[in-house]
């Protein structure tokens, strides 16, 4: 069984140390995610691709407690077997805050300010039996 990313161009994969792919404004240095043209901070048109840091701190979080509608969601939406998942913004120092799934969904184990690291997690299987993967942040042990 092979693993395929949910999309190309959002994170580096396959990789032993995957990174999110963002943009940096050529004029003012502002970071953006995902890749985009045009800087929302200074209005300059030119940006360049940049790999974002793999570690940061949890800025805020919630837990997705019910199955999202599918589409657009590609993961398990069966109410009997759905498992809640964490969602948060992780502050990457000197860059920006990125929204992401979290590998932890227990409110008792999540706290604002905790150290997080990027990982790649399974999301679902496609019709060929491949495992579709996306990015998430995991608490640093």
């Amino acid at each position, binding site marked *: 069984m092979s693993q395929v990313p949910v999309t190309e161009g959002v994170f580096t994969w396959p990789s032993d140390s995957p990174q999110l792919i963002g943009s940096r404004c050529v004029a003012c240095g502002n970071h953006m995610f995902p890749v985009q043209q045009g800087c929302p901070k200074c209005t300059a048109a030119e940006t360049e691709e940049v790999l974002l840091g793999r570690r940061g701190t949890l800025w805020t979080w919630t837990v997705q*407690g019910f199955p999202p509608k599918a*589409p657009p969601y590609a993961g398990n939406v069966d109410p009997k077997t759905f498992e809640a998942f964490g969602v948060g913004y992780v502050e990457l120092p000197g860059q920006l805050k990125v929204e*992401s799934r979290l590998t932890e969904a227990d409110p008792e184990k999540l706290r604002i300010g905790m150290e997080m690291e990027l990982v790649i997690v399974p999301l679902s299987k496609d019709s060929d039996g491949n495992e*579709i993967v996306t990015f998430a942040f995991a608490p640093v042990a």
Partner: protein
Amino acid sequence: MSTEVAIVGIGMHEFGRTDGVSGMDQGVVAVRRACADAGVNWEDIQFAFGGSMAAGAADTMVSLLGLTGLQFINVANGCATGGSALFSAYNTIRSGVFDLGIAIGFDKHERGAFRVNTKGGGLGDWYGASGLALTTQFFGMKINRYMHEYGITQSTLAKVSEKAFRNGSMNPMAWRRKPISEEEVINSPMLSYPLTQYMFCSPGEGGVALILARADKAHLYTDKPIYLRAAVVRSRRFGSFEVLAPSIALEHNAGPTVDASKAAFEMAGMGPKDMDLAQLQDTESGAEVMHMAENGFCEHGEQEFMIQAGDTEIGGKFPVNTDGGCLANGEPVGASGLRQVYENVLQLRGQAGARQVPNDPKTAYTHVYGAPGISGVTILSR
């Protein structure tokens, strides 16, 4: 010198679920009721701005109301659709182009949380596929951070819902008219931590229409004209934290609500202390809490004491969401902002019945917020 503008007629179709009646038909009912309230016929209306998110192009309703040839412009601005229609109608009269017009909003959504159109929102398919395209998550994350920074408790969030359902129980147009206790709110299923089911509003159905006239001609239609002192819509600036954002900047900006609020107060020549009551966007109970401060009605963190003390109840120092807000009325996106104005007109006319704010209120404020980071504010006075 611009012309002053008055609201001279209001109409509403009941919010909630009306099976077998399309969203547009609910809009038509609202228009007919507004015309009756102002004592005008549809052919008297010179222009219209109208919109819905999910219930069709508003201008097609002329085939039901009458083909009078009026200027009818569709507005599509997400949660600020109603506010944008009102802004446009207000300025059309102020500029002197027309004397009498109507702002219309209606909608009808499928059950459950909004299904986000990621492409239409400028987002990649991966975003929804990965489980991030839910507006509910934003609200959970924003209030979670806010509680961490300002010490708001879950009891306060639940009290906001309890108030909404109590006010809704006194509103014959509301969807949810059964009071729900603070305890029931806290014990309902956790949808998006720290927010439970009864802390969230639901997408719903309904329609609202408001007839506006030059203030110097308002007496032709009503003996209780309510003057529109400000109508403002603002989009987000860099650094604000908004719904459906794959990333946000490190630096912090207060957001479109703060900008819209300041602009509206400036336009009206008034301040927060001059307001007698407010309808504030309460997509969920935490939103009402945060929007109290963002609109200038208190400092961040003061809500904890104010709500626990009952200040925002109908009989309190500063009533908020007297008609039950989005929590009790649901959110038909195109109609929601106009529903707030409808309620404020009733309150300022003294026609709000069991939920009438005491002591003869003279000024009232509305605020909507929604994707992708827009805010609309109006200020009314007698």
